[in-house]
């Protein structure tokens, strides 16, 4: 039996898990997919927004600004990449300039510091590759970039280290009141009993909410497509370049990533299916054309991959973070679209406060654990290390001297570490998210079979059971000769 069951291991579920790990609670995280960060947390812009876009007075505005401030400390504690590279919103027309003043005004109301309107010359001095025809720009130096899946993985690993139990590949099928005090959660792999349930199911959070009878909100998927460029273009811009926001979102951005690539996207298209992460010809073309308005020097070649992610849009537009209307012990954390990644650390704290309130009403609030370890060390990265550190790494473990992914310079040592973390990386994509193996310009063409060899050896499973991303995604479909008929075989 658990005190708290968190449904969903995206950045929100993992942030809440890590926050609750500070207290004397038995916590589990139930995730339908084969790894953490497989929904929206794995496919978004990776921006830690300054907080000027949100309407003042909304929960979004408050948690965005609070979360943004927390990123410096939490990235140090959890050892994930984070850089305050600053955000710039461009104005292409005089009307856009009015929008910038409006955004600045909003930002100040929301508590965003250091906002400044730049002249064309000032903006171009900072970013020489911008469209020279811009009328001006809003500069927000507190804006930052991170790796959304690394944030999620870091939070999950730190939560696990502090006792939170992760159940991957456990899809929640139904939730019942077990007794007055408890819930019974039926998953694809067995039942769980828990006093409290936190619904952080992202794109499916309305469906999970309905399992306890709450029909007060629904979630609409809004797709965004991206193009990722080769690292040779990573310094085309140094800050994150936005266009004036529209009704559908913050618009197409051009940004360096923390790993040194250049990312452009997303568009914003409402879709019907909750699993529609297909890229489209129209979407990709739109993103490219739109990005050209900001940075006219954007190359046509050297795009190494494209992807799409879904925003979980709730009616009303604001985050929904509150106890369920039907059951106080069931906390809804829904509609966490952008700036969800920026707000994630603050959402963790906010949910802990709500839980504490409910528990206090019942008698006893949250009690801190003295042995909570807030620190987590990431996998030692060969590519980021200087030569002395590399020499030490190899001295300790020879496998850090064998490079498996040549594009991203990922060693066997890192891949073996990824397999042994908690929660473990058990799929090819999970290893990719933790080590960057296969994320480079050859997109895994050379290293994938070698990674599969290492998985086969370390996990003790044959290659024909290795998957790309969980159930139904086998990498190979059989052994040589398996498909030959009986006649051919003898």
């Amino acid at each position, binding site marked *: 039996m658990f005190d708290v069951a968190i449904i969903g291991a995206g950045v929100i579920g993992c942030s809440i898990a890590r926050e609750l790990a500070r207290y004397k609670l038995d916590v589990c995280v139930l995730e339908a997919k084969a790894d953490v960060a497989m929904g929206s947390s794995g496919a978004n812009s990776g921006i830690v927004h300054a907080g000027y876009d949100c309407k003042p007075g909304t929960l979004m505005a408050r948690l965005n600004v609070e979360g943004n401030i927390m990123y410096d400390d939490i990235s140090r504690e959890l050892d994930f990449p984070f850089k305050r590279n600053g955000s710039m919103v461009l104005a292409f027309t005089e009307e856009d300039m009015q929008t910038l003043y409006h955004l600045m005004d909003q930002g100040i109301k929301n508590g965003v510091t250091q906002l400044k309107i730049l002249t064309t010359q000032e903006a171009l001095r900072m970013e020489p590759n911008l469209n020279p025809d811009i009328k001006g720009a809003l500069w927000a130096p507190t804006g930052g970039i991170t790796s959304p899946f690394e944030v999620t993985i870091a939070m999950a690993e730190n939560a696990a280290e502090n006792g939170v139990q992760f159940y991957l590949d456990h899809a929640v099928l139904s939730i019942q009141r077990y007794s007055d005090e408890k819930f019974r959660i039926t998953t694809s792999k067995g039942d769980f009993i828990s006093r409290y349930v936190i619904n952080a199911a992202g794109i499916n959070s309305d469906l999970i909410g309905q399992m306890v009878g709450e029909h007060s909100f629904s979630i609409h998927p809004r797709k965004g497509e991206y*193009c*990722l460029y080769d690292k040779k273009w990573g310094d085309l811009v140094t800050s994150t370049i936005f266009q004036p926001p529209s009704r559908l979102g913050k618009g197409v951005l051009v940004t360096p990533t923390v790993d040194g690539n250049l990312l452009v996207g997303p568009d914003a298209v409402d879709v019907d299916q909750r*699993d529609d*992460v*297909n*890229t*489209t*010809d129209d*979407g*990709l073309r739109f993103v490219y054309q739109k990005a050209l308005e900001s940075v006219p020097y954007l190359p046509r*070649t050297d*795009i*190494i*991959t*494209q*992807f799409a992610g879904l925003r979980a849009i709730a009616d009303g537009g604001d985050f929904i973070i509150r106890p369920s209307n039907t059951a106080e012990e069931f906390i809804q954390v829904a509609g966490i679209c952008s700036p969800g990644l920026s707000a994630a650390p603050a959402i963790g704290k906010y949910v802990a406060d709500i839980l504490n309130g409910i528990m206090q009403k019942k008698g006893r609030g949250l009690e801190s654990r003295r042995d909570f370890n807030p620190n987590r060390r990431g996998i030692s990265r060969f590519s980021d290390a200087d*030569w002395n550190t*590399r*020499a030490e790494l*190899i001295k300790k473990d*020879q*496998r*850090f*001297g*064998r*490079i498996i992914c*040549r594009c991203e*310079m990922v060693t066997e040592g890192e891949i073996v570490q990824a397999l042994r973390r908690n929660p473990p990386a058990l799929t*090819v994509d999970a290893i990719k998210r933790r080590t960057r193996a296969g994320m480079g*310009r*050859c*997109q*895994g*063409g*050379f290293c*994938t*079979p070698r990674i599969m*060899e290492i998985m086969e050896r370390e996990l003790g499973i044959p*290659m*024909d059971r290795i*998957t*790309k*991303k*969980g*159930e*139904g*995604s*086998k*990498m*190979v*479909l*059989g*052994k*040589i*000769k*398996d*498909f*030959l*008929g009986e006649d*051919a075989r003898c």
Partner: protein
Amino acid sequence: MLSMKADVVVIGGGPAGLAAALSCHERCIRDIVILERDSHLGGILQQCIHNGFGLHWFGEELTGPEYAQRFIDLVEEAKIPYLLDTMVVDIDENKTVYAVNPQHGPVQIQAGAVIMAMGCRERTRGALMIPGGRPAGVYTAGMAQRLMNIEGYMPGREVVILGSGDIGLIMARRLTWEGANVKMVCEIMPYSTGLIRNIRQCLEDYGIPIKYKCTVVKIHGSQRIEGVTIARVDDARRPIPGTEEFVSCDTLLLSVGLIPENELSQKANVQLDPLTGGPIVDEYRQTSVPGIFACGNVLHVHDLVDYVSEEARIAGYGVWRYLNGLDSKCGLQGDGRARIKAGCGIRYVVPQMISGEEDIELFFRSDNIYDNGTVELVDGDQVLASKRFLRIVPGQMERFKIKREALSGIKPGDGLVVRWRSLG
């Protein structure tokens, strides 16, 4: 960091690197080291278990591993040192090479001359920007080849191949032999980008259809690929609306081009030719950085490994000249070389610079199929040399030998052109 010196550092122990090292050795250079990132010598040939290698070089038909082994044996005989599992991470213009391996950790080697022989990589789905899902089962042909021939596993059962590059054609046959159903090969161009003999021996002999002017416009499936939408394309290679057709499959292999792998060369400030994707070299295969040479698929994509071996031999000769101070006309300062450009009908030509001191051989590819004509080397209005061809095709690398006498009139800085001229 372990620090070493060597007269010649060869980066890459595949066919180009092995032949280049042997060529240096034949010229009595003894202080050589080959750096190979894999755990064995031979490079990608080790997974090319089909035959057809060596007809030009050895006069007999060998498999890839056999071809490689002949060179490996010679390297062992000559006692040329090599380091396996050794990845070169960095190199600078002073020819200091930084590498790493499990045994020695970081290694720094000061080279007298460097031979780049890192080979090429395959174009990916991402580079083509094929829309759709991102399921398992979408692989480059070379990766599928490794899965089958090295690991012993079947990438899939129902296969569509996009692109008619040689590896894709070879894999069509290989998969068929192992009981997979290769449904079709789609080629966006009106002709094959692979060798004619491979179209015959790998597709026609097995009744595998090839659809020209056809491409994949969508990948279906979220976990494992469930099918592709194919469409015909117009002359500008744009899909024609209304011609879309769904083809179910569990595997999509891509054989859509090879890209010389020159990230390392760029670290040493080696100038690249946008047409080949490889370094700009002279007839000795010396790059724009004096003392750095290149050969094999890192220089331009070859169709036959035999030609790689030939080119590597030239690079070895160039290194010998360089180490003996015979390359006075080369180098960045006071360049005494003439440039060669691809003209009408020609996609690229290697070398791109010549001094004209010796007989040379030009390697080139055409930009389309041309019948009955000549390929000419011209200097302004003057035809310096020409060679008759019954047919040239983009999938086949062609060669053009030119005597030193024909080049006696060229001057430094001249812009020579190689072009196609039709007869009849």
